[in-house]
């Protein structure tokens, strides 16, 4: 949790109340990861994001621990602002720039799942289409051509914006992301970044339970989840 984070309580709610998993909140000043199995960097506007999204948060004391944890193979999951921070911190390649519309967008999107062999997506079916909302002004994924082709070749694109039937089309792209990218994983497969909010669609009354599949995927391999 950084000052300015706001999805911490939503992620915590899903982990704790919906899933019944072990939950710890980590503070940006913490230097101890409290023996967790998975670290979530939730959405928000860390430090206000006045400079550039995630640009300040990467320098938070806790981020050093998070980097080391990722290097050791620990599960790190950045959602929305968390994705932006992971990119700034160099744990994931590329960057998230202003939406092509130049406007904030809060709306439902469809995501096609391209990897189901990851600890984050093991509960999803092959090329399953998930209904997950986005809520961001800077979610337009950008990377240089070399990085992009590396990502594609190694199959590091986990989620792509698509239409309801799973077709990856321009009109299904809500923010102008290159290759309709909504989420990527590092080469080792233990650091996931995604712009959409699975914690907002983990109960039927919120419109979809597709997000819960991701939390359920993580839970068996990580009994103790930390929201960082």
């Amino acid at each position, binding site marked *: 949790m950084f000052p300015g984070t706001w999805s911490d*309580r939503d992620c915590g709610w899903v982990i704790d109340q919906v899933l019944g998993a072990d939950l710890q909140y980590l503070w940006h000043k913490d230097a101890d990861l409290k023996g967790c199995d998975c670290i979530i960097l939730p959405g928000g*506007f860390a430090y206000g994001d006045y400079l550039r999204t995630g640009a300040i948060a990467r320098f938070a004391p806790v981020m050093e621990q998070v980097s080391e944890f990722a290097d050791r193979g620990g599960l790190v999951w950045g959602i929305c602002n968390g994705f932006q921070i992971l990119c700034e911190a160099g744990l994931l390649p590329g960057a998230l720039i202003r939406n092509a519309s130049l*406007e*904030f967008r809060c709306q439902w999107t469809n995501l096609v799942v391209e990897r189901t062999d990851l600890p984050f997506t093991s509960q999803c079916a092959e090329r399953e289409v998930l209904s997950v909302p986005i809520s961001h002004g800077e979610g337009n994924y950008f990377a240089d051509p070399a990085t992009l082709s590396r990502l594609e070749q190694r199959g590091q694109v986990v989620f792509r914006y698509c239409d309801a039937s799973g077709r990856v089309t321009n009109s299904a792209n809500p923010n102008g992301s290159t290759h309709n990218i909504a989420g990527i994983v590092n080469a080792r497969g233990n650091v996931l970044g995604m712009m959409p909010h699975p914690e907002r669609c983990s109960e039927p009354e919120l*419109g979809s339970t597709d997000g819960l599949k991701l939390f359920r995927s993580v839970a068996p391999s990580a009994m103790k989840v930390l929201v960082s």
Partner: protein
Amino acid sequence: MTAQSVDERRLREVALTPEEYRVIVEELKRAPNEVELGMLGVLWSEHCSYKSSKALLRRLPSTSPAVIQGPGENAGAVNIGEGWAAVFKIESHNHPSAIEPYQGAATGVGGIIRDVIAMGARPIALLDSLRFGPQPASSHHVEGVVAGIGGYGNCIGIPTVGGEVYFEDCYANNPLVNAMCVGLVRVDRLMRARAEGTGNSLMLVGADTGRDGIHGASFASLELDETSSERRPAVQVGNPFLEKCLLEACMDLAHTDAVVAIQDLGAAGLTSSVAECAGRVSGAGAHIDVSLVPRRERGMSPYHVMLSESQERMLVVVERGREAEVEAIFQAWDLTSAVIGHVTDDSYLTVVDGPALVARLPIGLLTDGAPLRRLVGVAAEQPPGLDIDALPPLVDPGAALLRLLASPNLSSRRGIFRRYDHMVGDATVIPPGGDAAMLRVKGTRLGLAVTTDCNSRYCHLDPHLGAQLAVAEAARNIVATGAHPLAVTDCLNFANPDRPEVYWEMEETVAGLAHACRALDLPIVSGNVSLYNDSSGESAIYPTPVVGMVGLIDDYGKRLAAGLRTEGDFVLLIGSSHNDLGGSEYLQVEHGMVAGRPPALDLARERAVHRLVLVAAENGLLHSAHDCAEGGMLVALAECCLLGGIGVRCPAIRPESPLRMDAALFGESPSRFIVSLPSRAMPELQSLARRHHVEISLLGLAGGDTIEFEGQLRLPLVEIRQAWEGALI
């Protein structure tokens, strides 16, 4: 300095009249010094003192068994059961938004959030009631205000779930930005901003104090003129990140019992927050040392410090000796806190700057001393009448429907609300776009329905009736979700009350609000008045009493959405239709007229219709419900189809004389809903309707991808959606 010798220019600067100055000298038995004059000026401004409206506001009902806190605090509070209280208030930020739309709207949102925090509540929802001049001339207002609301609300992580947007000529120079915030607090943790306990410390927390926003309250109490843009420095700048930290720190204060009270610093800054906090406790006073106030810049005089409207600041009253506990909580969020004074028992606000006495004024003089203005209301000229028989008959209902759906006041608001985060908090169980939005109270089955409403065109044509219709429609929005209307917060926007016809509008509006609220058992627990919404004496706004309403459903699993849900359902109109074309969108869009009288409202009938819908929802008979409002039955029906993505097939409509075809389709008779239900539920609904003496009529069957009235109208949903969604942005 005597009443005669005080510089008139100086008095104008602090927005005091010579008469008010005379009263001050008489009460003090001396002339006020510069700082005192400034302090009295802001607190006696219309914005803070309500001197033109107080006498009227007393007529509004403010009690019900659910009310825990009525007007007079930072926000109102009602008991919603299971140990929870809903805290809410609406407030205007019109003048700043006219001059500097982005920051004006942003700080309006920031201010109303702090009002809810001050009650100890966690804010869970924001709503914004907006009014602009016609597009495209008003684009810079629209763009700035929408971006400002999003900029603040999205960053702080409170969902913006509802509101309204209207376009009328009268708002071209005076856009209205009314922001409402709803929060939740355990009933036993509800805070009140009362400076109790002589000797207790006054701590200022949050942002440092700068020179921004000085005289903001006075500025809001003047008409806008060509020099208004020079007042841009009176508009504050918002920092939502800081407020997010302030919010979380204030929530953490719940872990300690060292805090006696929290008070927001809003209009008139430190002066009003200290005076109001002390003013709520009989005999209490306060002693402030301005040299202890953390500052953003050098060279600030005590005058600046006392009048600064720097945002994101709170005053916390702390038990003496426990300041360190509170400081530690703010420290954890990297927020400054400083003890700047203490509570006294001398009924005076004493301000010192180190050893020097700066100001010493009786609390009562500051908070209640402003002489109430005795204004005279004279009925405005009758607006143009409407000879309904002279209206040409409706030729092509399909074309008219498309034009109405594409009109600025009826088109889809999705282009706006998708720019607001309306989901954060995981509580939004009815998203924006329908009638009221609904938020679940996590950990319970309770659902809170929230809405704002006002048709100011009705209010212009008949302020008394228009105000009643605003209350009735807000209640209908709530009922359409299956929730029971619970309480109201109001934001009363008017032009210059010194003009007798404007004051008359205020009198009529308040009487109408009071009447409708009493009839529907709705207390008004908080609110705000915004006057002088006109420019250089011309282009006065319509009277615009925005009604913010909160309703409650015991089990949000029984909530209803507006969109049709299941193919094959019966689609019904509940309530009766009359030739109500006065003030309608149809009249404006199709005939270019704002004329006639607003639709007649029978509050007993309104109540009966509410009861019927609520019982039917409670018994699980209904699949959807939607309020029939602007644009009438056909527009409401189209919205049901568009929101549900299901068409409707109806037999030809044959209105019974004297009901006209145009009125049957587009008339705006109140107390009506469109509902859908499975055929098996029909008998029970029919018997309920008989019992409640409410007329129901079958319109048709849900299904297909067109809206069809046999032989009269047949339009594909795709085409209708294009008209509806293509219009705004």
